[in-house]
C-alpha cells in the first residue's frame, strides 16, 4: 500500500474535527449549515454587496455544470486569471467540485508567460476577468490546442468581440441551469466523488532560480492539512472578516482565502479595486490579513511618507510615541516588563497617538495579521507591534505547506516561530533536521505531492523520505526557527568572510527612500557593495522640499544630494553589521527595476543572476574603484517599444568605504 492510500484511508475515518476531506465538500457543508449567512462581500457601486453561502453555492454550481456541459472532465485543468473577485473564487469552487484542478495566474503576467503556464498545466478552459486578460488569452490561443472556451466575467469593453471561443461567465451559468434540469444531481455526485488525493491546484514556482516555473501539485488533503496546522497555532474564529488581497496565484492565498475560507469559514471581503485596498481594510474592519512582507512594508511606508509632510510637532509626537510603543512591545514579546516610565505613559500615548494611527490604517479590529513569503525587517514588526497589532511571521513552502509560525504571546521577531502541529488525520507529526550546509529537511504531515509532469525535478527535492527545502534555517535554544537565506544565497567574499546578502537588503529597504537593493559580493570580490533603486516618489518629494530641481528618474537618482541621502541610509545600516561585511561602495541605478523587463519576479523578488549580468560593467567599475560609469540602459516601455537611457552613473563610497580606502 502506498503512502498516499494510507493517508486517504486515514482521512476517511478521521477525528471528528475534520468534517470533510475535500474543498467542495466543505462548500456543501457551509451551504447546509450556514446557507443564509454571509460568505462574500465585495464593494461594488460604492456599497458592500453581500453573497450568502446559499448564493455562493448556487453560483458555483451553475458555473460548474456549465463547464461540464461544455465538456470539462474530471482531472482536467481550468486556468483562471484576474484580480481577487467573487467570480475568481467561484471559478475555483466550481472547477474543483467538477473534479478538475485549477491553475491561477497573476493578473500582470505577459502573454508568453501565460501561454507557458496554460500549456504546461494542460488547461482546457481559461477564465479571465476582463478585456485585458481576454486579450492575452486570444493572443496565444493558437498555441493552446486544448483550450475549448475562453470565459470572461467582466463584460466591459467586450462589446465588439465576436470570436466564437469567447463566452460570458453568466452565459456559462445559463448553460449550467439548463444542464441541471436535464441531468439533476450531477454537481452533487461530482462533489461526492472527490478524494483528498485529487489535485486541487497547480501552483507555479516564481522561477527565482532562473529555470522555467514548475507546477507544484497541491492536493485537497495537503491544503486542508496546512489549514488545520494554522488553525491550531493562530488566533482564529469562524466568520471572521478576512480581506482577500494577495493573489490566489500565490500558494499562500490558496491556503488561507480559499482553503481556510471554506474550512473555518471566513467572511471573505474583496477589495473594490487594487488601488482602494488601504481604504477597504478600514471599511471592512479586517480581522485577519495575510500580506507578503513587501505589502506590510508598503503599509508602514505610507505612514513614514505621510510623516515627512507633517510639521515639527506632529513628527516629534509620532517619533516619541513610536519609541515608547516599541519599548512596551519589546517587553511584552520578550515576556519581561518594560521600563516603568514607558509602562505608565503607554496607555495615554496609545489613546492619543497610536490608537488613532492604528484606526487610520484600518487595523483596529485586526487579531491575526500574518506576514509570510520571505524575511521581514524587524523595524516593520515593531512598527505594527508598537500600536498593538500583533503581526506574526509565518514560514512555509508551496511544496509541503505551512511549517512554522509565531504563536502565543512571547516570540522573537528575528525568528519565524515554532513548528506547527499536524492533525493525525493527515499523517505523522512534522519532523525536521538541519544539514551541514544549513539546509532544512522536513518530513511528516501530508507531504510533498511532486511537481506536475516533472518527475526529475520532484526527485531532486527528495532525499530518502525527507523533503529538501533549499532554505537555510537555524534552530534557537528556545525552539524557534531563524530563517537565514536560501542555501544557495549565503555568500562568501574572496577574503573568506561569509555575509548575508538578504539581511543587508531587507534592512536597507526599510528606508523610505530605497525601493530595491541588490547587494553584491562573492568569491571574486573583496568587499560588499550595493546597487540601489531609489523610491522615486519619496525621494522626489524630499528633493522638491529642498528645492532640488530634477527632470527624470535617471537625473534624480544621480543628483549629488540624493546620493548623499542614500549614503546616510547605508551608513546607518552598516553600524549594525560586523566591520568586514559592511557595504563599502554603492551606486543609484539610473532606471527603476521592473517585472516587465524580467528584473523582478511578479512577487517583486529580485532576479539576481539576471541583474548581475545586465549591470555587469557597472559592477566591474565599482570594484575597479572608479567614480563614474557612463552607461546606456535598454528600457522596454509598457506599449512594447524599446528605448535607451543614456547617463553617467556615479559611484559613491560610504563612510566605512572611505575609511578602508584610506
Amino acid at each position, binding site marked *: 500500500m502506498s503512502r498516499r492510500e494510507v493517508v486517504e484511508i486515514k482521512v476517511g475515518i478521521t477525528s471528528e474535527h475534520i468534517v470533510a476531506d475535500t474543498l467542495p465538500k466543505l462548500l456543501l457543508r457551509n451551504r447546509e449549515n450556514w446557507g443564509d449567512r454571509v460568505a462574500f462581500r465585495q464593494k461594488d*457601486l460604492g*456599497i458592500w*454587496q453581500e453573497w450568502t453561502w446559499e448564493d455562493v453555492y448556487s453560483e458555483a454550481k451553475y458555473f460548474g455544470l456549465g463547464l461540464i456541459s461544455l465538456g470539462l472532465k474530471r482531472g482536467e485543468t481550468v486556468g483562471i486569471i484576474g484580480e481577487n473577485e467573487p467570480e475568481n473564487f467561484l471559478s475555483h469552487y466550481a472547477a474543483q467540485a467538477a473534479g478538475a484542478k485549477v491553475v491561477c495566474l497573476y493578473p500582470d503576467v505577459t502573454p508568453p508567460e501565460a501561454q507557458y503556464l496554460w500549456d504546461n498545466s494542460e488547461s482546457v478552459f481559461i477564465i479571465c476577468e476582463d478585456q485585458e486578460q481576454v486579450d492575452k488569452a486570444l493572443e496565444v490561443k493558437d498555441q493552446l490546442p486544448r483550450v475549448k472556451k475562453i470565459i470572461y466575467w467582466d463584460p466591459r*469593453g467586450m*462589446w465588439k468581440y465576436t470570436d466564437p471561443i469567447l463566452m460570458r*461567465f*453568466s452565459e456559462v451559468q445559463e448553460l449550467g441551469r439548463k444542464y441541471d434540469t436535464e441531468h439533476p444531481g450531477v454537481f452533487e455526485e461530482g462533489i461526492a466523488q472527490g478524494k483528498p488525493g485529487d489535485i486541487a491546484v497547480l501552483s507555479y514556482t516564481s522561477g527565482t532560480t532562473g529555470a522555467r516555473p514548475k507546477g507544484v501539485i497541491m492536493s485537497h488533503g495537503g491544503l486542508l492539512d496546512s489549514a488545520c496546522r494554522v488553525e491550531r497555532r493562530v488566533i482564529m474564529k469562524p466568520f471572521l472578516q478576512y480581506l482577500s488581497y494577495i493573489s490566489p496565484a500565490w500558494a499562500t492565498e490558496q491556503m488561507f482565502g480559499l482553503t481556510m475560507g471554506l474550512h473555518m469559514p471566513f467572511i471573505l471581503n474583496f477589495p473594490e*479595486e487594487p*488601488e482602494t485596498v488601504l*481604504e477597504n481594510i478600514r471599511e471592512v474592519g479586517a480581522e485577519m490579513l495575510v500580506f507578503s512582507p513587501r505589502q506590510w512594508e508598503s503599509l508602514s511606508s505610507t505612514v513614514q511618507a505621510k510623516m515627512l509632510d507633517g510639521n515639527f510637532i506632529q513628527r516629534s509626537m509620532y517619533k516619541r510615541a513610536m519609541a515608547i510603543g516599541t519599548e512596551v512591545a519589546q517587553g511584552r514579546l520578550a515576556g519581561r516588563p518594560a521600563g516603568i516610565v514607558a509602562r505608565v505613559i503607554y496607555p495615554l500615548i496609545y489613546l492619543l497617538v497610536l490608537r488613532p494611527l492604528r484606526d487610520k490604517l484600518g487595523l483596529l479590529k485586526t487579531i491575526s495579521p500574518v506576514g509570510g513569503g520571505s524575511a521581514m525587517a524587524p523595524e516593520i514588526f515593531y512598527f505594527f507591534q508598537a500600536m498593538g497589532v500583533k503581526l506574526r511571521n509565518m514560514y512555509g513552502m508551496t511544496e509541503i505547506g505551512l511549517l512554522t509560525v509565531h504563536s502565543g504571546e512571547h516570540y522573537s521577531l528575528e525568528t519565524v516561530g515554532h513548528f506547527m502541529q499536524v492533525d493525525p488525520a493527515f499523517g505523522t507529526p512534522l519532523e525536521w533536521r538541519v544539514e551541514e550546509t544549513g539546509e532544512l529537511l522536513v518530513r511528516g504531515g501530508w507531504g510533498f505531492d511532486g511537481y506536475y509532469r516533472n518527475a526529475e525535478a520532484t526527485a531532486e527535492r527528495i532525499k530518502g523520505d525527507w523533503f529538501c527545502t533549499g532554505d537555510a534555517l537555524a534552530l534557537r535554544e528556545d525552539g524557534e526557527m531563524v530563517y537565514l537565506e536560501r542555501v544557495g544565497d549565503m555568500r562568501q567574499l574572496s577574503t573568506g568572510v561569509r555575509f548575508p546578502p538578504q539581511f543587508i537588503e531587507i534592512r536597507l529597504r526599510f528606508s523610505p527612500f530605497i525601493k530595491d537593493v541588490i547587494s553584491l559580493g562573492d568569491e571574486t570580490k573583496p568587499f560588499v557593495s550595493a546597487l540601489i533603486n531609489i523610491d522615486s516618489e519619496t525621494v522626489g518629494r524630499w528633493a522638491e522640499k529642498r528645492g532640488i530641481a530634477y527632470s527624470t528618474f535617471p537625473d534624480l537618482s544621480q543628483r549629488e544630494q540624493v546620493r548623499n541621502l542614500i549614503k546616510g541610509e547605508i551608513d546607518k545600516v552598516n553600524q549594525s553589521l560586523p566591520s568586514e561585511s559592511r557595504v563599502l561602495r554603492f551606486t543609484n541605478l539610473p532606471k527603476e527595476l521592473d517585472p516587465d523587463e524580467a528584473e523582478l519576479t511578479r512577487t517583486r523578488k529580485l532576479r539576481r543572476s539576471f541583474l548581475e549580468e545586465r549591470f555587469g560593467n557597472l559592477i566591474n567599475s565599482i570594484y575597479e574603484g572608479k567614480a563614474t560609469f557612463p552607461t546606456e540602459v535598454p528600457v522596454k516601455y509598457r506599449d512594447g517599444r524599446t528605448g535607451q537611457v543614456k547617463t553617467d552613473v556615479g559611484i559613491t563610497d560610504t563612510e566605512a568605504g572611505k575609511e578602508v580606502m584610506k
Partner: protein
Amino acid sequence: MVKVRRGEKLSYRLSGAARALDVEHAVILKVEDITLSFGRIKAVDGASFEARDGEILAIIGPNGAGKTSLLNCINGFYKPQQGHVYFQGKDISRLSPHKRAELGLGRTFQGLQVYEGMSVLDTIMSGRHIHMKLNPAQAFFYWPWVHKEELEHRLVVEEIIDFLEIEHIRKRPIGMLSYGLRKRVDLARALALEPKILLLDEPMAGMNLEEKEDLARFILDIHEGLGTPIVIVEHDMEVVMDIAHNIVVIDWGQVIAQGTPAEIRINPKVIEAYLGVSVT
C-alpha cells in the same frame, strides 16, 4: 439596499438600448453654414458638417483654427451671426446653453471647469442636476422621496465611477487630483447628464502618452458600451486618426476637408495646413 449583479449594470444601457453600430445611422447633429466673428476677425467662416448617430467624429485643425469656437457655437456659449445648428432634426440655434444641455448635449472643457473644493462624487452628482425633479425646499426638509431620488442618482453616478475607473478617488476633493484625473472627472460629469451626444474639447491636451492611451480607451468604451455619438475636438492628429470614424478638418475657420482618417491622411490641403508647406 441596492443589489446589482456585475455585468447587468445599468451603465451598459445608460443611454437607452445599446444601438446596433453597423446600421446606417441618422444624422443627429447638423451644423449649417455657421459664421462667427469677433469684430473683424472671423473665427468660424461658413462651416458646415454633420455628425451621425453611433459615430466618433473628430474636428481637427492647427492651433487657432476655430475649433473651440465652433464647439461653443454648437453648445450655445457663442451666438453665431449666421447659420443654424440642428440637433435631432430640430433647430436649436436660438436656445440657451442650459436648454441645449437638457436636450442631451453633454460637453467637457479644454481648460478645466471643475469646482476645486468639491469632492469627485459631488462634482459628478452636479451633472445629474438636470434630471432632478425636486426643488430646494423639498431637499431642505429631506423627505423620504428626496432620499429615494438621491439614491437613484447616486446609482447612476456610481456606475459612471465604475465605468471610468475612478473608485479610488471617489471622496477626494478635486483640488488634490492630478491634471489627468481632473479631466476624467470632467468627462464623468458630462456622462452624468446622460447625453445623447458628447462634445469633447481637446480632452488629451497636456496629457502624457499613457494618459492619452487610457483616455482613448475610455472614449472607445463610451462609444461601444453606451452607444453615445461623440464629437471630439483635438489637435493631436495621431490619437484622432486611431479612434475617429470621420474627421472634419478646419483651418482659418473654414472646413477644408472632410472624410475618413485614411482619406484625411493623404489630403494635400490637410498636410499643407498642418505643416505649412505648399505641396502643389
